[in-house]
Structures are given as C-alpha cells and as structure tokens.
C-alpha cells in the first residue's frame, strides 16, 4: 500500500509542476545594453545644395509594413541560429556575428546571405606614466612618445585582420573609422599615414633600441635590462574576444625585440579597476588591449583627438597622465571647439592632428571590426552601416520577403526582453530597442548609409546658422541660410518652472535678450493630426509634442513631483547650450528651436520635437499614468530612482507595474487627469483626455499592456519567460510601404581601374575608372568625388588629384606630361578613392603600371 501511495504522491507532484508551469500569468516585456546612437557628422565643405538622386522603386498600394507579423524569439547561439536559418525555422538573426567560422558557414550556404556592418574597433592603450613608475620604481618605456610611435611599425595590422580576425575587419592606423566621411575626405592624408606606418619590424626595433639606450637600459643576452633587472612589460589582455589573440601577438612581438613580457589575462570586469580607475603610476600595467564602439555612421570625427589624446577627454587617472605636445593639444582643442570657419581650415587642422596623433600614439589603432547579420537569402531589410539591422531605424519599413506581401517573419536574437520598457528611462538594450523602433516612429530618420537625416513625419525644415560657421547641406528637404546674428524671440520657452508647472520664457530668463548660433524651423504637414494615430486609436495631437518639450526639463528639476536625480546632470548639460523653443503654430504644427549647439551638416541641425523619447515613443496620456505612479512613489521611470525609492522600475509591457499602471489609468480616467495642467491644459481638452484614457483602457483590456506608438507595427503581446514577442502590422499606418525601400541595400561603389601598362616618363597618360553598383553604372549625381593618388617606384606619394567625370559610372585620371615627369623609373601604383553621396564607405581600387624613360 505504501508503495502505491508513494507512486500516487509522485505523480501528483509531477502534475502540479506541469500545471504551475502552464500558467500564462507572466506577461510581456524585454530588455539589453543599448547605447544611444549619436550621429557624428562630418561634412563636406564646398557643397551647398546638392540633391542626391536615387532610383525610386515602383509604387505599391500597401501602407505601412510589408509583412503582417513579426515573431521574435530568443536564440543565444550564433551557430544554432545559422542552422535554424538553413532549416527555415527563422528568417533573420538580429545580431552582429563576428565569428569567422559562422560567417564562412553563412557565405557557403546558397540559402543564406548577410549584411556586413562595422561597430567596434580595437587599439592598444599605453600607460604613459614614468619613465619610471612611482609605485614600483620600474622602467616604463611607453612613457617615451618615440617608443609608442615605433609600436606602429612593430604591429602588423594585416596579420591581425587576416589571421586573427579571419578577414572580418579592416586595418586601422588613425583615430578615424575607416567607414566615415572624414576618412574619405582626408583619404590622401590617411593613405600617407598608412604607408608611413606600414609594418616594419626592423625600423621599430631600431628606434626602440635607440630610445631604450637613452633611458639607460641595456640589452643583455638579447633581453633589455634596467638597473640590473629585466625590463618587464605587463600586457593587460582582454579575454572575451579576439583581443586575447591580439594581446598574445603583441606580447610575442615585444618578446622578439628583447622585452620580458607578462601576459595578464583579464575580463572587462577584472581589467577596468586597473586600467581606467587605477593610478597609471602604480605600474600595474603597460599596455591594455582596448576596444571601443561606434553605433552610427560618424560624420564628424574632429573631437576624437581631444577625447583620446588629451587630459580633457575623461576625468580618469589615465587620461590625466596624458601629456600631448603643446601644438597637438591646441589643435585638438580647436577641433573640439570647432574654432575654424571653413571646411578647408578644418581639413588642414585634421591633417596636422593626424600626423601629431601618430607621433604621440598613446593609442595605437589596430583594426575596425566587421561583423555580419545573417538572414535568409529571400529576406530584404535595411541594415545600418554601423548599427546593423537591429540598430537600423528603417528595419520595420523595409523588412519583407522578396516578391511577397504579407505573411510572417521570424526574427531571432541572442537575448530578448532584457529590461523594462518605458519611453523615458527604460531599457537601453539594443535587442529591446530594435523592437521599440518597430513600434515607435521618428520625426526624422537616419540614412543608414550616410548618417544624414530624412524627414519621416516632418514635411520640411529651415536651418539658419550664424555666419562664419562651416555648415553645409546635402539634401533638398531643408534650406540652409546664414545670418550675422540670430536673435531668440522673447516669448520662446527657455526653461521650465517645475513648481508652477509652466515654461520660463526667454524674456524672463534673459532679460537683456540673447542670441543663438543655430535656429531651426520644422514644419509638419497640415494633415498630421488626421494621418497619425496612436495604436490605441487616439489621434496624434499637439499635446503629445508639448509633453515632449516639458519632459526635456521637468524630471531634472528638484521642484518637480517627478524629480529624478539621475536625470538632473543631463538636463543641466542640455541647458548649457539650449536657448529656446517656440511653437509658432499648432495647426499646422511649426516649431522653432534656438541653440548654441550645431553640427557641420544642416540635416543634423534640425530639432523636430517629435515625441520619441530617450527609450521609445510615447503618447502624453500613456506617460501620464506612469507619471502618476512615479509621483506617488509606487514605481519609477528610471532604474536609479526605482532603487532609491525601493520600488519597481516601470514597465509598460509586463510585470508588477502593469497593475499599478492600470490603477493609475482608472484614477486618471475618473479625474480627467491632465498632467502639468497649467501648461499642457492649454493644448489638451478634457474631451481629448477622456477619449484617450478610454482608448487606453480598451487597449489594455485587449492586450494586457500599455505600450503604444504610431509606427508600422504594434506590440501584440510579449511573453517574457518564454522569450517571445509578437508584433503585428498596424493597419492604420498612413504612409506607403515602399517609402524607404531604396535603403534595402547599401550602395557601396564597386571600382575598377584600367589603363596603359607602360607609361613613358614625361608623356601624358590616361586611366579609366569604372564605378558600378550591382552591375549598373553609378550615377554621377550620386558621386561626391573621385580622388587619385600616385605612388612612385620608391613608395613615395608624388601626385594627388581629382579624377574627371566622363559619364555615369565612368571617370578618368589624366596625368599630364609634367605629372609623369615627377615619377621615378619602375613600378608605379595608382590608387583611386571613390566617395559616394549615398554611402559613407569610400571605395578603393589600385592599378600598377611601369614607368620608363
């Protein structure tokens, strides 16, 4: 009997466990560490109004998204993801895979394809303290700039890219990302640097030997000694990625030239207290295998010198040990302060800074890491050059199976629903943000290939900058003007009085009046309020925009009922350059913005005030219920405030705060709550508030969450524990599905050079440059410039010039008799750099010919 009882009890336990796991009580949400993608702009100088001509696809009738459903699942393993792609189990793996074996597997499969992107880059960070460490009394050779500079010759970057990264990277010699407009603009300067610092171990050894002897070190039996002890170099090697092999390679190279090397393998967590927080003079490390990230196409890298080479970069002990030369320091400062008036002047400064940066070399740049996003061959989707697919703003508009409309696409990602979703200070993980961008739209969207902006909900804009600022524009959706002075109108809003809940005008804040360096006027279409609806059915209104403006200030003000100490530094920083905002008209919506912050590209100087917050889009009424919870101390928008108050971090899609939000929605609905009533009440009527709360109540009833946006997909449901999210096509989206289709593939030019194999010195020569994309000639209107560089038989750069446009897809390099007269006898190399207006990645090609008398 006992035995049967035991059996019955066992079965009951199993059954109860199955039933408990079958509960679908847990709901939606997501999370990761997404970095805010800042677009660094660099722009060309002389251009004024050049319109990019791009082929338009055949119009279609469908609005919004091409597919009906996006199913998102979790798949932590890239290997498994590729197998699942092959088995049609998933359609896209939204991750940047940098594993060479996996990339090879994708390349070998005819059923798959991938989009290539950049993002991270590697370097060697040197400890410049010394030359004798105070902490250990030991010699630090890297205190000497010449030895650091010589490290450029000691490291073979091609080896790193080809052997360690297996081709998934590009060698890098300078602080410029290889795919950036500054790299393209300064191509000849960068190329010179690359040639000068090409791998040359003998030269490195020669310089290092000379400098070590100056320091008093001696080479004994092939090993450097100082004060009778071996000169020890501690290489702090990160272990999580390819930097482990890079660190070993660098250590080997140093050992080869006589140093005694200690390889200190560390994870990020273990290394950071030593290299970034520790005192460099303690002598705990000499070289650190550093890595950085770029998340958007860089358009202005002028501030890299100040950040990476001077003590102004960061208030950390390592940076405070930097001692750039006076000349370099001044140029770096001028570049970060933009103390130039023309692009030519800037280019000169940048060229000089490059030269000085390599001489300083507190960092030796190694490689730009490339990675791939694997997908089914029939899938099309826009991929950002830096952010890949999951960082692209255009992925929701462009994702589709070729030749198909409707259906479902399954997207896998390594992690899903990582942290709570709320638009003000919720999850910043890139996986969450990909989905958030699917449900929330922007006023302006970034071109994934150039980093410039295009209008999405905005109709047009005007930009006015103070005369003397080297701002240029590229696209035709906005105008650019210069003014001797830009007065900020007295009735514009300059700040926020959190106590009175009203804006402080410019006249109140600056009684004497004030000016700004930049003004933008943004115009929304006349039918904005009819066309744009939130997913819960509420029409978009001016209240949504005004709430956005209020949120720029309010939570950083101590008098606010929603004050958040972690936001205060951001608001303070924003106010240091902000001058004012003025809603000129609410219907149609026209907004002027005044600021001292400006960018080189006019397209990046437009403030749209579209209600897409730091971590997502939000309607005023959805925020209102969160504010109620935050103000009551029952939950908080930010993690920092939630921890401070010991309450839950607000999630609009699942978890314990859903019930709190529901209670607040009921309260708001009953009270007709309009947050910041003294101000927002002027833009929102009681009827609108009632209707919106009713809509949101119904939305929650149907779907169990409060996440709404206006984009082409809405969040149907999230299953946090199961790791699944379902997005559905928003049928009421107003714009055509093919609107952004031209961004489905990056138009990176394919270049070929052809010409005479033998050139007589002192005679004319001509070479053809063919520029294509996918087999079609590249339009002349889409090409910014084609530069050529000629290196003679001695490897010296002797000629630099612009190729002449002949027709679409064809340029010509014409060398005069005088030009060829400068060439040495032997094999000459012609290098061509093609810079497109449609993509920030320059294309290179080279051609060799023989020069003879």
């Amino acid at each position: 009997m006992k035995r049967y009882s035991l059996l019955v009890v066992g079965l009951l336990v199993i059954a109860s466990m199955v039933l408990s796991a079958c509960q679908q009580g847990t709901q939606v949400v997501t999370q990761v560490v997404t970095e805010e993608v800042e677009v660094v702009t660099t722009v060309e100088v002389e251009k004024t109004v050049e319109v990019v001509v791009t082929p338009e696809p055949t119009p279609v009738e469908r609005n919004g998204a091409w597919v009906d459903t996006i199913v998102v699942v979790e798949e932590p393993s890239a290997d498994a993801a590729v197998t699942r792609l092959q088995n049609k189990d998933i359609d896209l793996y939204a991750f940047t895979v940098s594993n060479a074996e996996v990339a090879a597997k994708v390349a070998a499969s005819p059923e798959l394809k991938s989009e290539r992107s950049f993002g991270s880059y590697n370097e060697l960070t040197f400890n410049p303290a010394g030359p004798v460490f105070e902490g250990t009394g030991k010699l630090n050779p890297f205190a000497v700039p010449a030895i650091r500079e010589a490290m450029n010759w000691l490291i073979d970057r091609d080896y790193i890219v080809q052997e360690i990264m297996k081709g998934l990277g590009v060698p890098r010699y300078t602080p410029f990302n290889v795919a950036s407009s500054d790299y393209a603009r300064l191509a000849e300067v960068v190329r010179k640097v690359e040639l000068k610092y090409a791998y040359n171990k003998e030269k490195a050894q020669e310089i290092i030997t000379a400098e070590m002897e100056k320091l008093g070190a001696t080479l004994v039996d092939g090993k450097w000694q100082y004060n009778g002890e071996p000169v020890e170099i501690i290489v702090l090697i990160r272990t999580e990625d390819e930097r482990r092999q890079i660190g070993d390679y660098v250590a080997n190279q140093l050992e080869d030239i006589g140093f005694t090397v200690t390889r200190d393998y560390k994870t990020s967590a273990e290394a950071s207290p030593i290299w970034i927080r520790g005192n460099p003079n303690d002598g705990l490390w000499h070289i650190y295998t550093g890595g950085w990230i770029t998340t958007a196409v860089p358009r202005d890298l002028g501030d890299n010198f100040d950040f990476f080479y001077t003590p102004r970069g960061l208030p950390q002990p390592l940076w405070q040990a930097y001692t750039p030369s006076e000349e370099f320091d001044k140029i770096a400062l001028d570049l970060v302060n933009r103390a130039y008036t023309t692009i030519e002047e800037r280019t000169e400064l940048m060229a000089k800074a490059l030269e000085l940066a390599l001489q300083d070399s507190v960092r030796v740049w190694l490689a730009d890491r490339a990675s791939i996003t694997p997908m089914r061959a029939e899938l099309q989707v826009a991929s950002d050059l830096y952010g890949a697919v999951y960082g692209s703003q255009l992925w929701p508009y462009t994702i589709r199976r070729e030749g198909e409309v409707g259906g479902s696409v399954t997207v896998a990602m390594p992690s899903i629903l990582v942290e709570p979703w709320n638009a003000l200070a919720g999850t910043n993980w890139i996986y969450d943000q990909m989905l958030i961008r699917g449900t929330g739209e922007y006023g302006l969207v970034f071109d994934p290939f150039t980093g410039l902006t295009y209008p999405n909900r905005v109709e047009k804009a005007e930009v006015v900058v103070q005369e003397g600022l080297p701002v240029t524009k590229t696209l035709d959706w906005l105008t650019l003007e210069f003014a001797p002075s830009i007065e900020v109108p007295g009735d514009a809003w300059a700040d926020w009085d959190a106590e009175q809940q009203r804006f402080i005008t410019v006249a109140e804040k600056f009684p004497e009046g004030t000016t700004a360096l930049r003004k933008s006027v943004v115009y929304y279409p006349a039918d904005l309020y009819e066309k744009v609806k939130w997913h819960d059915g509420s029409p978009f209104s001016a209240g949504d925009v005004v709430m956005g403006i209020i949120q720029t200030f309010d939570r950083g003000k101590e008098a606010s009922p929603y004050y958040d100490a972690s936001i205060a530094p951001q608001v303070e920083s924003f106010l240091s350059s902000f001058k004012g905002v003025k809603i000129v008209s609410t219907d149609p919506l026209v907004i002027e913005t005044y600021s001292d912050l400006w960018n080189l590209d006019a397209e990046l100087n437009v403030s749209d005030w579209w209600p897409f917050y730091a971590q997502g889009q939000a309607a005023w009424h959805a925020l209102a219920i969160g504010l109620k919870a935050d103000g009551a101390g029952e939950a908080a928008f930010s993690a920092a405030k939630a921890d401070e108050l010991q309450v839950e971090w607000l999630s609009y899609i699942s978890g314990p705060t859903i019930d709190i939000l529901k209670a607040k929605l009921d309260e708001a609905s009953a009270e007709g709550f309009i947050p910041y009533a003294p101000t927002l009440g002027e833009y929102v009527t009681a009827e609108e508030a009632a209707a919106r709360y009713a809509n949101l109540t119904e939305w929650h009833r149907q779907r169990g969450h409060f996440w709404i946006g206006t984009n082409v997909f809405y969040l149907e449901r999230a299953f946090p524990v199961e790791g699944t999210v379902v997005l559905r096509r928003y049928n009421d989206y107003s714009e055509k599905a093919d609107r952004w289709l031209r961004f489905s593939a990056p138009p990176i030019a394919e270049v070929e050079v052809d010409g005479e194999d033998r050139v007589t010195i002192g005679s004319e020569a001509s070479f053809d440059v063919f520029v294509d994309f996918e087999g079609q000639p590249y339009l002349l209107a889409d090409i910014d410039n084609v530069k050529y560089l000629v290196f003679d038989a001695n490897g010296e750069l002797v000629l630099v010039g612009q190729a002449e446009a002949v027709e679409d897809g064809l340029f010509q390099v014409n060398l005069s008799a005088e030009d060829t007269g400068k060439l040495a006898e032997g094999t000459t190399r012609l290098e061509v750099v093609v810079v497109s207006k449609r993509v920030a990645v320059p294309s290179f090609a080279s051609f060799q010919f023989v020069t003879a008398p």
Partner: protein
Amino acid sequence: MTEATQSPVTASPSSLEKKAAASTLSRLAKYTLVKVLTLAVTIVIGVYLTIIIANMGGEVDNIRRGEIRERIALMVSMNQDLRRLPAEERSKYINDMVRIEEERLGLDRPFILRSFTYLADAMSLNLGRAQYLTSDSGSKQVRLIILERLPPTLVLFGTANILLFFTALFIALGLSRHYGSFLDRVVIALAPTSAAPGWFYGIFLILIFAAILNVLPYGGMVDAPVPETTIGYALSLLKHMVLPTLAIFMSSIFVTIYSWRTFFLIFSSEDYVEMAKAKGLSSQMIERRYILRPTMPNIITNFALLIIGLWFGAIILETVFNWPGLGRLFYRAIGLFDTPVIVGETVIYAYLLAITVFLLDFIYALVDPRVKVGGEGPKA
C-alpha cells in the same frame, strides 16, 4: 546527517507508560532545540561565506567602480554632444553620473557593513532588490525574479528527475532479483555512459531531432508565437520538454539503476531475507517487507535531496536548450556579481536543505520502527 538513534524494541509495563511519554516529549524538545540551533548556525555561516565569496571579500567593489567608469567612458565616447561639452562641464557630468551609480549600488558604504546587511536580510528572507538583473517581466525584486524562473525549472527538472528516480528504482529492484541476467549485464555495461553530462547528450539530440529530422524544437519552452489556449500551451510545453528530459534521463539512468541495484543486492543477501525465503514467503512480500522497508530511509533521503536539488537547475543544460530556468539565472547573477540574487538563491537553498535534514530525522522514525529521534543509543 541523521542523529536519530536505534534502540531495541521492548515491551513497556503499563505503569511506566505515562512517565515514558513525558520523557519522550522532553527528549524530543531538547533534540529539536539543539538541532534547530545547530542548523541555524550552519545556515548563518554558509550564507555569510556565500556573501564574502560572491563579493570576493570586497574586491567586487573595486571591480564595480572600474566598470562604472569604463561604461561611462564608452557612453561619452559615443555621444558627440557630451564630447563637445567644455572639459570642466564634461568632467562634472561624468563625476555626477559616477556618483549616482555608486550610490545606487551602495558603494558609498564600506563592504563590511553592507555584508552584515546582506546577511540580516537573507536570514529574515527579505531578499530585497537585484542590483543589475530584472525578472523577465521587469521586476527588480529578487523574490519575483526567482519565482518567475521557478516553474520552468520545476517542470523540466522535476519531471525528468522524478521519472528518472522511480524508473531507476523499480528497474533496480527488478534487477536485484535477477542478478546476473542479460538485462542486468547490459545495465552494468552501459553504466559508464553516465560519465557524460546531460547537456552533452542534449547537443546530439538537438542535432538529430531538430537540425536533421526537424521533428522537435531546438530549444525554448514553448512554440512562438505562444499558443493561446491552455491545452495548446501544455502540449507545446510537452513537445519542448521531450529533448531536455531525454537528455537528463539518458545521462543518468544507467548509473542510477546500477547504484540502486547494488544497494538492493546488499539488502537482498541479509540473513533475515534468506530466512524469509526459507519460510516460503512470496517474493512480493519479501521485496516489500524485507528489502524495501529497511531501505526506505535511504530512498526517502535520496528523493528529498533530489527535490531540493532542483532548486539550482542546470546551467549548461538550460543554456543548450535555451530553457528559462534558475540555473541560467544563477549563472548570470554570478557573472554580474549581483549579490542579492546570488544570496537569495543560496539562502533559500540553505533553508530548504536545513528543513529537509531536520524533517528527515522524524521521517526516519516514522518509516523505520528501529529508529528513535533523540535517543541515547548508537547513531543510525
């Protein structure tokens, strides 16, 4: 672990019954008190050691401070607006951000003080808030983080282990009666296969049934999109449980059978079993009364430890099958040095273990008349 004692079964005169009962109660109370105190001290020491180890004796504070600075440096490197702030303003901004984050993590208080706070909270089962992790649905409360992952762990490992336990037990019992049979030899021959862990079999099972045959899922807990009906959900769950359950089962079944079989064989050759056989009792009767009954304490101990052993799940197996269990949670918490989550999981396990150990003594006494709780005789 048991401190129960054996004493010969003797008849008591009726006049002494009341006195004996009082004596038993007193002995029981004393034993219980000592046992509870001993276990409590053990838990305190164990949990405090966990706190110290999880924080590497306070070194984690340095790691965190470094990480905060590195994270902010990276953030600034990517934010052109911040990089273009005047140097002093940028420094102030960065220092403010560092300060806020350090305060949030409690790094403004010495570790030694915080370690006692962690201990007090843990002992009172006030699990508090995670420092980095959130539950899948977004909560920062350790209690909810753990509770959310508990059902998937229980359903998978509970099913697999209980299945494994009883299957092994009954097969072993059968084999012990057929010592040397073909099946017995097969089991002995296959026992070394259990040297490979479950996840190892899991990889092959995924390869065969998911990648090649495409008949079972690669991993996860249910299909995507998630079925809307309870029955659909349960069926989907069962489908997703097949491979991981099989992996666990395959990795342990033979060695478990072998182990129980050997155990039963020892008891099968006891004199009193031989005597029972000689008396002509049926084999079922012998099995139940003379083999199973004396081995019950061991079986129950194994079962109880198996049940509380489910608490930590299995890190690698959960990872291979992408199963949202406690094992992966614990692993992430360790990686992030999320002390409250690590301590939370550990303290609950410690309590479960202590309670189990405590209760087992009483259960032994219930199932085995030779055992008396708190008796003076020899240790059982």
